[in-house]
């Protein structure tokens, strides 16, 4: 009993740290004026989200999050930011002021809406979580679900990735051809 309550306190402490880091880095991504710092803040956001996934015993998703997002996607982001060049802008600059006001109002309305719907629809039933076995969230379990129950989603995901790869190649090739035409003229 004592061991369980000590474990509870430790998990609460880790959760508070991860959730605070998550929210602070999310705000930082939106409010930094330099996209390079925004990308670095997003890496922190993804890492703290991986901690939250681990607390929810989703080990494989946490590992995939760190590998795919923080490893691959963010490196590509940083490459493109370095390629485009540093360009700072204030978060509130550009565009009419009613646009910024409308953006803040819309985001606030979205937050209130989500919280109210969750509170109304699921307020009482959220406190009794299901007990899980130790295989929950393990790579073996994820792989079994992917290849049995969700095979169609798995295949469609591969097609989506293929289409995105072809689209990326076409976008790059098209703009290069446009440049050579301009120099020929």
């Amino acid at each position: 009993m004592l061991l369980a309550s000590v474990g509870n306190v430790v998990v609460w402490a880790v959760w508070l740290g991860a959730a605070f880091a998550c929210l602070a880095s999310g705000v930082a991504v939106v409010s930094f004026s330099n996209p390079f710092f925004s990308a670095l803040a997003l890496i922190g956001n993804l890492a703290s989200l991986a901690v939250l996934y681990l607390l929810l015993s989703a080990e494989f998703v946490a590992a995939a999050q760190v590998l795919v997002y923080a490893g691959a996607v963010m490196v590509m982001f940083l490459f493109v930011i370095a390629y485009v060049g540093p360009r700072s802008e204030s978060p509130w600059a550009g565009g009419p002021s009613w646009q910024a006001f409308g953006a803040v109002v819309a985001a606030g309305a979205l937050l209130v809406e989500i919280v109210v719907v969750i509170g109304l629809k699921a307020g009482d039933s959220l406190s009794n979580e299901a007990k899980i076995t130790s295989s929950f969230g393990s790579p073996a379990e994820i792989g079994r679900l992917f290849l049995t129950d969700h095979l169609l989603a798995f295949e469609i995901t591969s097609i989506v990735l293929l289409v995105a790869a072809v689209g990326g190649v076409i976008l790059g090739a098209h703009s290069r051809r446009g440049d050579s035409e301009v120099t020929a003229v």
Partner: protein
Amino acid sequence: MIALLGPEIAWYLGVSAFLFAVGALGVLLRRNPLIVLLSLEIMLNGANLALIAFSRHHGRGDGQIFALAVMAVAASEVVVGLGLVVAMNRKRITLDVDRMNVLRG
């Protein structure tokens, strides 16, 4: 059998709702397409957190499968979005989402 230690699912859902709203604010507010893409990633991650929290709540793995599919879609979206940013930069268009308001190359 393992019970959930620490905060209840509702706390995770609160964090996910806040992340989604912050991401939406960034998408609506910022002009730089790179930061708009980064804010989109925050929105997708907020949705992912809700999916994984509900997956743990029900004790079923289906939500995690959906979260992995969302990750693949996010990676595809980043490829196409960054391709557009690089194409804009090559054509010497200012990196401002309001400048790209016609669908021709």
